[in-house]
């Protein structure tokens, strides 16, 4: 396949940045998207040019490092996968592909396609935990949890913290991310104990960091690589009112 890439290049956080055009010949449909970028970078380095910087690590869709806004979608046009799992077989010969970094005030661009997502860590630090010291835990089976609740908690807990929800939302809202963590703990008896403090602390931090407000458009749900549902946001709202 022959593809035209339009990639956002930005030298550092303060630089202006612009789109560069790269023509890629001989792209195999069996390649993964990031492998195509590897190939581009190999070429750039060999031409003594600055390679495209991007975050990536596990390359199997679980670490949450990678994240690019590809042709109008976070993680590209295929639903329910991360950028690293995006296969080139979804593109056609002659396609033009726009590749942009996540855009949100709390996620400033560091270089090219790398953004600073430490805001997510800050929200988790504010309250995304259950306060139990090592060694203080009761015997695991002394806490009985309905299978359905436990499964629901799991479905919320699988968030990989990639930031696609923020990137997709027209308001750059982090509600899906926050609600996933709140939901996981709200559904489990272990997490109920400090539910009130947790939800208030996390929402307060989320607001402070400059994320936008949820307007229930559902873009986050549509683009989440782990298919985290909007019900989590409703649950977050409920938990927040309960904490009044």
């Amino acid at each position: 396949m022959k593809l035209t890439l339009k990639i956002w290049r930005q030298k550092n956080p303060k630089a202006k940045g612009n789109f560069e055009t790269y023509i890629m010949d001989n792209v195999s449909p069996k390649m993964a998207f990031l492998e195509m970028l590897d190939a581009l970078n190999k070429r750039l380095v060999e031409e003594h040019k600055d390679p495209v910087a991007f975050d990536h690590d596990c390359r199997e869709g679980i670490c949450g490092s990678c994240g690019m806004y590809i042709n109008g979608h976070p993680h590209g046009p295929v639903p329910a996968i991360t950028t690293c799992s995006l296969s080139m077989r979804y593109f056609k010969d002659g396609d033009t592909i726009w590749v942009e970094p996540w855009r949100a005030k709390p996620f400033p661009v560091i270089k090219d396609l790398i953004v600073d997502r430490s805001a997510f860590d800050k929200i988790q630090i504010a309250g995304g935990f259950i306060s139990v010291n090592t060694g203080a835990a009761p015997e695991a089976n002394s806490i009985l949890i309905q299978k359905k609740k436990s499964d629901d908690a799991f479905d919320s807990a699988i968030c990989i913290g990639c930031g696609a929800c923020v990137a997709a939302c027209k308001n750059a809202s982090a509600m899906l991310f926050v609600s996933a963590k709140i939901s996981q703990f709200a559904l489990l008896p272990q997490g109920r104990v400090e539910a009130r403090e947790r939800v208030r602390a996390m929402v307060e931090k989320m607001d402070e960091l400059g994320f936008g407000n949820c307007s229930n458009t559902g873009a986050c749900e549509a683009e989440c690589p782990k298919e985290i549902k909007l019900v989590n946001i409703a649950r977050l709202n409920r938990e927040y009112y309960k904490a009044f």
Partner: protein
Amino acid sequence: MSKVLFSSITKKFTMALAGLFMLTFLPLHLFINLMLLKSEPGPFNTAAHFMATFPVIKIIEVVLFAAILIHISYGIWLQIRNWLSRPVGYVSGNKSDISFFSKFMIWTGAIILTFLILHWFNFYFIKLGIVKGNPEDFYSVAHNLFKIPAYDIIYLSCFALLGFHLFHAFYSAFQTLGLNHRIWSPVVKVIAFIYAVIIPAGFAFISITLWLFR
């Protein structure tokens, strides 16, 4: 406490409540408007008079105006923050598979507000004495307005937009209030759809009838 009172979620909660309250007013307004279809002005003017003078209604009117004010100001407040949250946009746009109208709430809202102001000039301000006219004969005022084609066109487009606004707003308010349920949420969506079609359609029906068939 102020952090909780003015947090993003509380603001949205307040805005949703205000919006839902406004939703209860629309069917009543439509019911009264339907009397415009009668050939004699009596029933409509009586209803209008009742609305303007009955004490309980007067109290609700204050609440309604407060709701409108809160809904609008909070809407703008939240929206400005939303714009600030993404200072640089995407060149490739947003192609996420989402409800089309949910993207334009601020704009449909703004147009509806403009119409509302026009509407107040035509009716409400007469009652308040700000604008000249006979507050005891809104029937004729309405009939005269609907005879102006330009007014009808504006009126109809605004109600179409109101429908779009209401469709997302209705469902969205429930989500914001945390009222999400496996069975009931889809029902709410259906009701939202019916409401968002019937209410604007009712108003539009009156406008078209008076414009073209009287």
